């Protein structure tokens, strides 16, 4: 591939000017090598790409590899995707966080909200040929609650007891009512294992749509489970390929050596979207949380918090950093994707740096503020920090950006101590989870150290009432309160991305890419 071809075929350049040529030459061969990925294919290359695709063999690429495959500790997309293929969850969630039956074909809640009964599907078999029994489910949840250090121990602390019900049903008794209880059953860790299973994480005897054939460091090869209780999967084999980076995975898709790439950055998606691929972008509830400590100066002053909000242009940030993917935030974790609870009833004040400046002067900072903004050293967060710094500067808030490696940022709970920081929060299926995690007075991750009696009461109500209207009202009030005096700014919610070759059908990309199901997929 010579340089002149590169410069003439790149977006924006039609003629090879001398300056253009010199420019590419100066950028060096390394840069030129990258360009190749952006080029349209010649007919010969396209034919070669098509030849590399095989019917019935689905190849899914990831920009990373699993670290653990024990359901108790797995968390990354690559890990959950593997578990999701080999095992089954009781309940799934769809692209708009609605509950979808899986092993549990139906469910009902007692009137007091303390007992949930789930009907389990009939004729479910493990890969070793044995039948799924209620004992397996009891054993699985016993295991999930056994390690007090694990994430699930806290998640299921509210379960008083679990027992086998009539026929093939399982009954959960709760200590406190929790209207989101079924969502906790759809948690990423909660795949159903065989009772008494050993070597979990290296031997995989699941009920899932695919059986593991071979696992080597850079790939997992699985084949369809012909006896799958919900019908034989559409693809004969499923391969997970683990690349070093998302760019390599995207290159592999363009070269035809993989069929699907899930989970990528905004820019990579934008590039792939322009090709002849089936590109899906799904809004999620994950977000970057910009927060100001509210228990000491300067954040303890409501006017200061208001000034930061007034100085921020959320739409501009959304357009530049998210490239318009995902959704614009309104400073509360009740994301637009939570359709039942999201509201725009309380107006978000227009951006007004002058008013922000006046508020700061009112609060005793006539010369503005000098603050350090701590941020994990990840591309999008550093970009957000730079955008905020430019916008806030107009209101007299001078920011020194301090990018820290993730290990340093989270070390010794440093991120909870600092005054001003940006923390990325992964997508969760209910708004309540975010509120409980970082906005309650005694929440372990209450980064902003915000404790507001009214908010506390509202979160309590939203998290315990089963009355949908009362819940809606509580969430609406929470959104209003956070816009008025909250210590947080949420400029946007992330999108989840999946790009696949046009030969692939039957993939619905989910907010958590690792939970994407492939049993209906055909190649």
């Amino acid at each position, binding site marked *: 591939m010579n340089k002149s071809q590169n410069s003439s075929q*790149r977006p924006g350049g039609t003629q090879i000017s001398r300056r253009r040529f010199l420019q590419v030459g100066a950028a060096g061969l390394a840069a030129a090598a990258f360009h190749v990925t952006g080029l349209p294919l010649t007919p010969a290359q396209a034919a070669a790409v098509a030849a590399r695709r095989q019917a019935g063999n689905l190849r899914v690429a990831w920009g990373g590899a699993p670290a653990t495959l024990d359901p108790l500790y797995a968390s990354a997309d690559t890990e959950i995707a593997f578990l999701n293929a080999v095992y089954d969850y009781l309940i799934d969630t769809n692209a708009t966080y609605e509950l979808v039956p899986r092993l549990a074909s139906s469910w009902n809640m007692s009137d007091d909200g303390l007992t949930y009964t789930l009907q389990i599907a009939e004729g479910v078999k493990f890969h070793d040929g044995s039948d799924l029994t209620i004992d397996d489910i009891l054993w699985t949840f016993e295991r999930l609650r056994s390690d007090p250090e694990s994430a699930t121990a806290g998640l299921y602390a509210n379960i008083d007891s679990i027992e086998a019900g009539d026929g093939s049903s399982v009954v959960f008794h709760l200590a406190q009512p929790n209207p989101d209880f079924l969502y906790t059953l759809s948690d990423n860790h909660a795949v159903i294992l065989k009772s008494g299973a050993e070597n979990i994480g290296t031997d995989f005897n699941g009920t899932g749509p695919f059986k593991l054939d071979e696992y080597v460091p850079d790939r997992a090869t699985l084949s369809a489970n012909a006896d799958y209780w919900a019908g034989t999967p559409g693809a004969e084999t499923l391969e997970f390929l683990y690349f070093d980076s998302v760019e390599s995975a995207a290159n592999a898709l363009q070269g035809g050596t993989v069929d699907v790439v899930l989970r990528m950055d905004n820019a990579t998606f934008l590039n792939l979207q322009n090709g002849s691929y089936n590109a899906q972008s799904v809004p999620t509830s994950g977000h970057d949380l910009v927060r100001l400590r509210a228990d000491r100066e300067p954040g303890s002053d409501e006017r200061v918090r208001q000034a930061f909000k007034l100085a921020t242009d959320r739409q501009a940030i959304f357009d530049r950093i998210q490239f318009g993917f995902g959704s614009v935030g309104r400073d509360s974790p009740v994301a637009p994707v939570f359709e039942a609870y999201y509201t725009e009833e309380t107006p978000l004040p227009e951006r007004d740096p002058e008013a922000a400046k006046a508020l700061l002067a009112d609060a005793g900072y006539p010369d503005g503020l000098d603050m350090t903004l701590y941020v994990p050293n990840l591309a999008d967060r550093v970009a957000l920090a730079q955008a905020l710094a430019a916008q806030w500067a107009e209101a007299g808030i001078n920011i020194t950006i301090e990018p820290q490696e993730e290990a340093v940022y989270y070390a010794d709970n440093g991120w909870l101590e600092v005054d001003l920081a940006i923390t990325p929060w992964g997508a969760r299926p209910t708004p309540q989870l975010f509120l409980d995690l970082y906005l309650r007075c005694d929440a372990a991750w209450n980064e902003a150290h915000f404790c507001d009696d009214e908010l506390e009461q509202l979160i309590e109500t939203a998290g315990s009432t089963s009355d949908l209207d009362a819940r809606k009202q509580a969430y609406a009030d929470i959104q209003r309160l956070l816009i008025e005096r909250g210590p947080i700014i949420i400029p946007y919610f992330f999108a989840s991305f999946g790009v696949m070759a046009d030969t692939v059908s039957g993939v619905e990309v989910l907010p958590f890419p690792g939970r994407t199901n492939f049993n209906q997929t055909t190649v």
Partner: protein
Amino acid sequence: MINETAPDARSARWRGSALRSARSTGRFLREILRSPQSALGLLIVLFFLLMAVFGPVIAPYSTNDQSSAPRLSPGTDGHLFGTDYLGRDVFSRVVLGASSIFRTAGLGTLIAVILGTFTGLFIGYRGGVVDEIAGRLIDALLALPALLIALVILGVVRNLEFERGSWQAVLVDNSVLLVIALVYVPIVARVVRSSTLEIKSREFVEAAQIRGESSFYIIFREIFPSVVPALVVEASLRFSYAIFLVASLGFLGVAARPPSPDWGLMVNENRGGLFQLTPWALEYPAGAIALLVVGVNLMSDGIRRAVQRSG
């Protein structure tokens, strides 16, 4: 008698040598300019030096000005080098980034050369045990890659917190410059030491010793001028390595904090998926680094040739 005439003789010698050095500098420059490549190198370095000095006057936008439309391609709407994903003018950022390269790489090299010269002259002249011990120390330091030392030091220093305005904070703010100096002191010292070892056995040094001159006088009046040619070559070479080191540290994210227009940082920020969207935002700073390094190398080639010719 020696004491009475010495001051006069010395001042005459000072004046004479000043004239001589002015004349030899002129000859030296002409020697460099004689080869077109070295002239080009010198021109490139001067070009960037002017950019560093007059950057704030030349650049139409400030470092973190995001008022323009993002992702404009080069040439459109008065953005000579286009804009990056945040809507910042790439031309302004490249121009403004020049000063930090010269400040860190240039000043760092200068400090390294000064300290390294003192150290090299001293241990070379003293010899014996001092030379043995210092020589081994220098060898030990040279065994470690410069980038590794710099990364370790900067990694530790950057996470220390000091009050704004305190002297520790000033040191931390200039840590890249100091690290460059620190990393290159042993290298310069070794070059100067080996020249010193060779020169101190010459007759004119022995003559000065017999005259009863002080060690200070001998080192700086007799030995130092003879070390200068080797030193100049070494310094220009160090400068080009320092630019590379600063750019690498910037790329790795330890040299400058965003939104600094550090060239290395700009390359890092615009690689990956962004590269296909805004190739110009990476190509121009990368090109600037390449051009400056090539320029400095051509110039130092010329310097080496001129040194050899003018003997």
